[in-house]
């Protein structure tokens, strides 16, 4: 299931963004989606997600000599979006082809090999200049650096430098999701505390556990995600009843009360599932 991302702009080219997002450590808890488009005016392309922190970091590192293309990754860093299925090869390919129509771009070899393993059509390739990789063109991805000599020594099908999603990338993306869960816990904290510490304890424990279980599992491509998330919530609800069951008054802890606990956990799980889809890109 793919929802329409805002990647290729409507007029067929990406806008050049003048304003530079600033790094903020709190983005780990609360996403700050930046504008989708091109940052910087150097030679060679670095692709990032529209996470403000990622753009700020890459601009600081490559802003002088590289052009940075921020894709709509729902506010996540590129590696997180790729790992969780929010972005895929096709989206990046469409974005680059959209870019190529209006300007000549300098594409790192490994990125070219990953996107076009069997070569490109002539209408596109005439505007693509292939560079040796002296940097990582896909932010956060391992094994992407290559030289032209490596490219010449191997056939395109056996190019040894294709980006891969490794365990490190998976762990990094899960840490990003964990941050969002903690951010939601902070938002839920005050309303739950207003109703007492026991309400807060159970509500936040439920939110944390459903967040963890969704965090480990979550991938946009795995369907039916909503139903699985609901089932995860019910499972956490059962765990909560086993742990906190004696907190319920003995004579009213009937089936309805237990069902309420189950559905609270399920609702929180679905909310986390929605949060993991990210945010709309800034316009």
């Amino acid at each position, binding site marked *: *299931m*793919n*929802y*329409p991302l805002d990647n290729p702009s409507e007029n067929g080219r990406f806008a050049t963004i003048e304003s530079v997002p600033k790094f903020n450590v709190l983005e780990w808890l*609360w*996403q700050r989606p930046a504008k989708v488009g091109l940052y910087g005016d150097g030679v060679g392309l670095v692709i990032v997600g529209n996470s403000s922190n990622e753009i700020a970091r890459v601009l600081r590192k490559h802003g002088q000599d590289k052009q940075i293309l921020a894709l709509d990754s*729902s506010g996540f860093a590129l590696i997180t979006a790729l790992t969780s299925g929010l972005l895929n090869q096709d989206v990046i390919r469409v974005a680059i082809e959209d870019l190529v129509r209006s300007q000549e771009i300098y594409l790192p070899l490994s990125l070219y090999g990953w996107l076009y393993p069997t070569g490109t059509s002539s209408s596109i390739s005439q505007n693509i200049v292939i560079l040796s990789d002296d940097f990582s063109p896909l932010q956060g991805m391992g094994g992407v650096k290559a030289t032209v000599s490596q490219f010449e020594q191997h056939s395109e099908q056996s190019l040894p430098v294709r980006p891969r999603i490794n365990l490190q990338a998976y762990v990094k993306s899960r840490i990003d999701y964990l941050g969002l869960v903690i951010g*939601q816990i902070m*938002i*839920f904290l005050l*309303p*739950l*505390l*207003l*109703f*007492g*510490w*026991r*309400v*807060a304890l*159970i*509500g936040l424990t*439920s939110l944390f556990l459903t967040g963890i279980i969704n965090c480990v599992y979550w991938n946009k491509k795995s369907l039916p995600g909503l139903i699985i998330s609901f089932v995860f919530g019910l499972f956490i609800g059962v765990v909560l009843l086993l742990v906190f069951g004696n*907190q*319920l*008054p*003995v*004579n*009213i*802890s009937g089936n309805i*009360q237990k069902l*309420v*606990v189950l559905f*609270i956990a399920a*609702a*929180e799980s679905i*909310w986390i*599932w*929605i*949060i993991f*889809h*990210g*945010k*709309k890109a800034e316009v």
Partner: protein
Amino acid sequence: MMSYRLSSQSQIFFALIISLLVAWSLYFILGENSGNILLPFINNSRPGNNHPLTEPTVTMTPSYRYENSQGVLYVSVRLYVNAQPEVVNAAYLSEGRVTASVTGNSYIRLRSSDMTVLYEVPFLTDFRQGEPPVMKDSIRMSFVLPGISLASHLEIDTPQGITLYELPPR
């Protein structure tokens, strides 16, 4: 295709709505002993929520809730049309449901050794019994009161008179 992505404002709005719904739901299934800072306000709209404490410092009112309590006091009294009431029996039970409060012209009170009222529940004395109702000379009523450790005397206050009864040791 439906997009599940929300804007920042929408995420905050829905997060607050969901958290409040979760809080309300948990509050009502957990009962009133949640350390709720809104309790004094919510109690006004929830009759019977002012549950008696075990170590009271003020005069309390009884509970309406059908909820078992530990260490209650069972009291059986006989009320006479032309005489002051008589306590037939008073004994501590390990568990029981405290008698609900109703409006009435009579009161049963728990007093401490210095005669401070620790607990008070009104009740209605009606000497008509049976169907069709027949006027009786006396009736017997039973109450279950909270087992307050500081209580030393039981007082039955009716229009026919007041009886003070020394409670047995726990």
